[in-house]
C-alpha cells in the first residue's frame, strides 16, 4: 500500500510540473516535435516504394542527419502536410506529394516564382530545379554552415550537378558550355569567394534573354560592377560602354574581352586580356572583323597597319615592351579620338606617346597614326612611303634580276667552255 500512496503523490507532482513544462516550451517558442513515429518506419534503410513507372524510390530518412539539420526541430508533418495513401493513417486531403516550403519561406518563394527555374517547371520540364534540388531534402543546413549545399564553397558543385552534365546541357539546349570546368579554373573559382549566384542570382535567377536578368547583355557591366565598381564606372563612359548601354548587340561588354565562366587573371597567358593576346585576338576579334567594321564604318586598317608597324612586328615576335592596342587606346576607358578625354585625342596624344618615349615631341602626334604605305594614300606621308616602296622594288628587281642574269650566263659559258 505504501507503494500506491507514493505513486499517487508522484503523479500529483508530475501533474503539477507538466503545465509548467508546456508553458516553458511555449515561452521559448520551441516545441520539441516527436517524430519517433515516422522514424519508426523511415529509419529502415531498405524502405522503398514504387512510383507510377515502377521505379524504386528510397523512403529512408536518416534521423541523425535530420535532427542536426536546420529543420531538425520541426515535426515531419510540418512539411509533409498531406500524406495519404494505403500505408499511412486515415485522414488528410488527397495526396499532395510536394512539400510546400512556402508555408514558411514566403519571400524566397516570391523570388523563386519570378526566376527561370520555376518557369521551366511550369513549362513541364522534368529536370528543372525545385527547392530541394539546390537546398536538399532532410539534410538542409543554413547557408553559413559549411555542410550546406548552399554554402559558398558548395554552390558551384550544387549548380553543376545539372549544369555541367553533358546530357542535361544538350537536352536543354544550353549550347556545349560546361561552365563547371571553366569556372573552377577561373580567377573567380579559385578565389573561393565568388560563386555562380554572385552573377546569376539565386532564387530569382533569370534567363539570358530576360531584360531584368543580371546576365542580360546590357546589365553585365552592372553585375560585374557589384564587385568591380570603379572599373564599371570607367567602362560605362567609354565608347564600348555607351554602345553596350544602348543595347547594341555587337558592342562589347565585360565578357566579350574577359571571357565568361573562365575569366582568368591578366597575367595568365591563357587569359584573353593577357598582354600577349590583346593585340592578337581580343581587339581584332571585332576590329579586324568584316561584319562589325562594315556596320560601324570602322576600318580594319588599324589592325593591319599595327601588324606592319615596329610595335606590331615586335609584338608578334613576343616582345612585351612594345606597345599593344591598350598601350595607346586605354583599357576600360577607351574613347573615340574626338573625345577630349580620350588618350588618343590630338591634344593628349603627345602625352600618350611620351609614356614610353620620354621627351616625345609634338611631331609624334602629328599625321596619321595607322598609316598604310600606298601611292594612292590619303596622306602625304603615306604617298611618299608608297613611292619609296615602288622605286625600291623596281630597283631591287632590276639590279638583282640583272645580277642573276649576268651570273647565270657567266656560269653557263664557263661550264660549257670547260673542257674535261
Amino acid at each position, binding site marked *: 500500500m505504501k507503494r500506491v500512496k507514493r505513486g499517487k503523490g508522484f503523479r500529483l507532482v508530475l501533474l503539477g510540473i507538466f503545465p509548467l513544462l508546456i508553458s516553458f516550451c511555449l515561452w521559448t517558442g520551441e516545441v520539441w516535435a516527436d517524430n519517433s513515429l515516422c522514424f519508426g518506419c523511415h529509419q529502415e534503410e531498405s524502405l522503398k516504394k514504387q512510383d507510377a513507372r515502377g521505379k524504386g524510390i528510397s523512403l529512408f530518412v536518416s534521423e541523425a542527419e535530420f535532427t542536426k539539420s536546420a529543420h531538425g526541430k520541426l515535426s515531419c508533418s510540418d512539411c509533409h502536410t498531406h500524406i495519404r495513401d494505403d500505408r499511412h493513417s486515415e485522414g488528410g486531403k488527397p495526396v499532395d506529394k510536394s512539400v510546400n516550403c512556402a508555408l514558411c519561406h514566403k519571400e524566397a518563394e516570391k523570388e523563386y516564382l519570378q526566376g527561370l527555374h520555376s518557369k521551366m517547371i511550369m513549362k513541364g520540364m522534368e529536370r528543372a530545379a525545385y527547392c530541394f534540388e539546390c537546398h536538399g531534402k532532410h539534410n538542409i543546413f543554413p547557408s553559413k554552415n559549411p555542410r550546406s549545399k548552399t554554402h559558398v564553397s558548395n554552390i558551384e558543385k550544387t549548380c553543376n550537378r545539372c549544369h555541367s552534365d553533358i546530357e542535361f546541357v544538350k537536352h536543354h539546349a544550353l549550347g556545349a558550355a560546361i561552365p563547371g570546368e571553366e569556372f573552377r579554373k577561373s580567377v573567380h573559382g579559385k578565389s573561393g569567394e565568388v560563386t555562380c549566384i554572385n552573377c546569376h542570382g539565386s532564387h530569382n535567377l533569370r534567363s539570358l534573354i530576360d531584360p531584368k536578368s543580371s546576365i542580360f547583355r546590357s546589365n553585365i557591366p552592372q553585375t560585374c560592377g557589384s564587385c568591380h565598381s570603379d572599373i564599371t564606372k570607367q567602362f560605362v563612359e567609354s565608347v564600348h560602354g555607351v554602345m553596350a548601354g544602348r543595347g547594341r548587340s555587337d558592342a562589347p561588354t565585360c565578357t566579350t574581352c574577359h571571357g565568361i565562366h573562365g575569366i582568368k587573371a591578366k597575367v595568365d597567358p591563357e587569359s584573353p586580356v593577357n598582354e600577349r593576346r590583346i593585340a592578337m585576338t581580343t581587339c581584332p576579334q571585332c576590329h579586324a572583323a568584316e561584319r562589325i567594321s562594315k556596320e560601324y564604318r570602322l576600318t580594319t586598317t588599324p589592325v593591319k597597319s599595327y601588324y606592319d608597324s615596329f610595335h606590331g612586328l615586335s609584338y608578334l*615576335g613576343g616582345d612585351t615592351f612594345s606597345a599593344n592596342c591598350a598601350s595607346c587606346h586605354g583599357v576600360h576607358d577607351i574613347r573615340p579620338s574626338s573625345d577630349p578625354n580620350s588618350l588618343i585625342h590630338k591634344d593628349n596624344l603627345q602625352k600618350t606617346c611620351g609614356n614610353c618615349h620620354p621627351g616625345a615631341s609634338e*611631331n609624334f602626334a602629328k*599625321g596619321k597614326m595607322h598609316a598604310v604605305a600606298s601611292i594612292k594614300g590619303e596622306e602625304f*606621308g603615306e604617298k611618299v*612611303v608608297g613611292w619609296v616602296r615602288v622605286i*625600291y622594288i623596281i630597283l*631591287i628587281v632590276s639590279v638583282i634580276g640583272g645580277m642573276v642574269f649576268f651570273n647565270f*650566263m657567266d656560269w653557263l659559258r664557263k661550264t660549257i667552255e670547260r673542257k674535261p
Partner: protein
Amino acid sequence: MVKKYLRMTLNERFQHLNLFINFTILVITGFALKYPEAFWVSPIKDVPMGMTFRGFLHRLCGVAVVTLGGYHLLYLAFAERGRGIVRDMIPKWKDAKDLWETLKNNLFINRPAKEIRMGRFNFREKFEYLGLIWGTIVMTVTGFILWFKTEWLIYFPMWAYDVARAVHFYEAILATLTIIVWHFYSVLLNPDVYPMNWAWITGEMTEHEMKEEHGLELEKTKAETKGRLVEFGEAAAAGGGKVYPIPLEGQGKSPKSVRRLYSLIQNLNESIKNWKGL
C-alpha cells in the same frame, strides 16, 4: 710548284671577317623583326626576352659595322696598302668595257671568247665594294634615325621617320640579295674558284685565279718580282722554300707575325693536301 699571290693581308682578312660576322647577325636579327612568324625566327621568339635581345643585338652589330667602317676609312687614308686600294678601286672606263666584253663573251657573241685582262680589282669587285659603301651609308643613316626617333622627330615630321623605316627595310633586302647573288657567285659558285676562293682565309690566290680575274695585276706582279724569288723557310712545303715576295709588305716593319700565321695556314693546307693516310 703552286704559285700563290697575296690577296688580303691579315688585317684585311680580319676586317672582312668582322664584316662577315656582323653583317650576318644584322641580316638575321633584322629580318627576324620583319618576319616574326617565319620558322627560323623561333629560336629568337622562344627565348624569354628574345625579341628585346634581338633589338639590342641588332644595334650592337650596327655600331660594330659603323666602327669598322670608320676604321676602314682610316686604313684607306693612312696605310700604304689602304691608299693602294683606293687607287686601284676607282672606277674607270675600262671597267665598263670589261663588263660589256664579259657580257658579250657570256652570250656567245664573241666567238671565241675574248680574253679579258683585268686589274687588281675587276669590275665585279669595284661594283660590289662601291655598293657596299653606299649600302653602309644608307643603312647607317636610316638606322640611326630609327634608333634615335625621339630626337629625329623633334626636327622632322613623322612621315620622314616612316620613309627611313621603308628605306632601311628595302635597302636591307637589296644588300642581302646582292651578297647572295653577286658576292656568293663571285667567290663561291664561280667555276673558276669553286668551291671557294680561299683568299678570305689564307689571304692568297692561286695563279689560275689571278690569271682569270686579275690578268693585268698578275703581269704587273710578275714583272716586278721577276727573278726575285726569295728564300722563305717557313713556307717550305708550299713552294720548295721559295715564294714570290709579298708586294708592299716586304718593306713593312713587322710583317713577321703576319707571315707566321700566314705560313702556318699555308703549311696546314699543304699537309692536308699531301696527306696520304696512315
